[in-house]
């Protein structure tokens, strides 16, 4: 069961100068296990931007159909949106990842948690639905493994490998640094001792 996670989020139109942003929490727990909404096979990424946020009778208007074309083992699907013919393919989310549909339950300022900087807006996102795959759609371009979404999913495993290597490298570096510093301290101590001896001898003389 996922717990609540706190994080800091920048809203899309916050400027870097103002240091604007929103602090908040994301609650990924299912509200009620029996009513958990599973949107697997029902999430579509369109090749356009839609200025509408809210409920929409998608299944009444958007009617994908499978074609005979197969790419990388999956059937290419066909659908029409605003007159344009789209071709899409369903891809699973990368191993170890899951998709969430979050709802922003905006609360009034504070709620007991004062933020130290910025506007003090506190956001609380809760998970309303989950999905394990999504269907992305191209206009006039047959889906392929060169598509940006597919390539970005490949990045996850690359990033994991890189961070593993980085973590190991960092560890090794720390060890090396430790040894090196210890050596320097040792040398310093020896030098100081030698210096004291020399001073003592010179005073003697």
């Amino acid at each position, binding site marked *: 069961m996922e717990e609540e996670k706190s994080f800091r989020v920048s809203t899309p139109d916050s400027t870097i100068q103002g240091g604007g942003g929103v602090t908040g929490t994301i609650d990924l727990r299912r509200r009620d296990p029996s009513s958990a909404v599973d949107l697997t096979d029902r999430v579509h990424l369109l090749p356009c931007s839609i200025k509408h946020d809210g409920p929409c009778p998608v299944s009444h208007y958007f*009617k994908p159909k499978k074609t005979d074309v197969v790419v990388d083992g999956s059937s290419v699907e066909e659908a029409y949106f605003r*007159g344009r013919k789209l071709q899409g393919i369903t891809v699973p989310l990368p191993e170890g990842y899951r998709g969430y549909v979050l709802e922003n339950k905006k609360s009034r300022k504070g709620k007991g948690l004062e933020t130290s900087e910025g506007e003090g807006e506190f956001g609380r996102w809760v998970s309303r639905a989950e999905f394990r795959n999504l269907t992305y759609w191209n206009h006039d371009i047959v889906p392929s493994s060169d598509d940006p979404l597919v390539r970005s999913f490949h990045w996850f495993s690359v990033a994991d490998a890189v961070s593993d290597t980085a973590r190991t490298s960092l560890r090794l570096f720390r060890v090396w640094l430790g040894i090196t510093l210890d050596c320097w301290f040792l040398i310093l101590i020896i030098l100081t001792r030698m210096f004291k001896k020399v001073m003592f001898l010179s005073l003697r003389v």
Partner: protein
Amino acid sequence: MGSAPLPKWASKPCIMGIDEAGRGPVLGPMVYGCLYCARSYQKTLATLNFADSKTLKEEKREELFENLKADSSLGWEVDVIDPRELSAKMLKREKINLNEISHNSAIGLVRRVLNMGVLLTEVYVDTVGDAEKYRIKLSERFPGVKFVVAKKADSLYPVVSGASIVAKVTRDRALHGWMLDETAENMHRNFGSGYPGDPETKAWLDHHKHPVFGFPTLVRFSWGTCTPYFKDVVYPT
């Protein structure tokens, strides 16, 4: 589709007329129809009184179409172009315009009839775009056939008038029997003639518009008629 085993007269020199229906409307399919017969049957064809299909009442056209179908000396074919195909082609990244779609449909019909084994020697068509360019385009593809491209061909040549009936009735029937893909509530099929100027069609568009989806796919999204209805909700990325 009007084809049975090839009739005997099809092996004699034949003529064909091609015409379209539903080019102007903002909704529904566009239909290309053709009618062909032996050249020797031309005189009889002229007596069948097709006239200009647009001036005829729908019931009269239906009657004429049934007569055509029953006439064993005539053959006919149609190409019903779905409105989704029209929108999709006209809205492609590399747009295919309506004239080109029309040309390709006519070419398809000629090819279909030739492939059936009919000995086509002359084809009469209505002008789409530049008449001479169209004629050359057609002649290049079918070297053995003589093409006559003329304005108002349906009033000049009985084969074209006949083809006009075939196209018009096919389109009317397709529209009457159209099953909307969309399953939203409160949708109805009283779309009138489908022409942008028809008040019933305008009312239908008003009733069926949607901020995200635009319209049902019966509508030709590439038509200028639709633009005022789209309120900048969707942007390409």
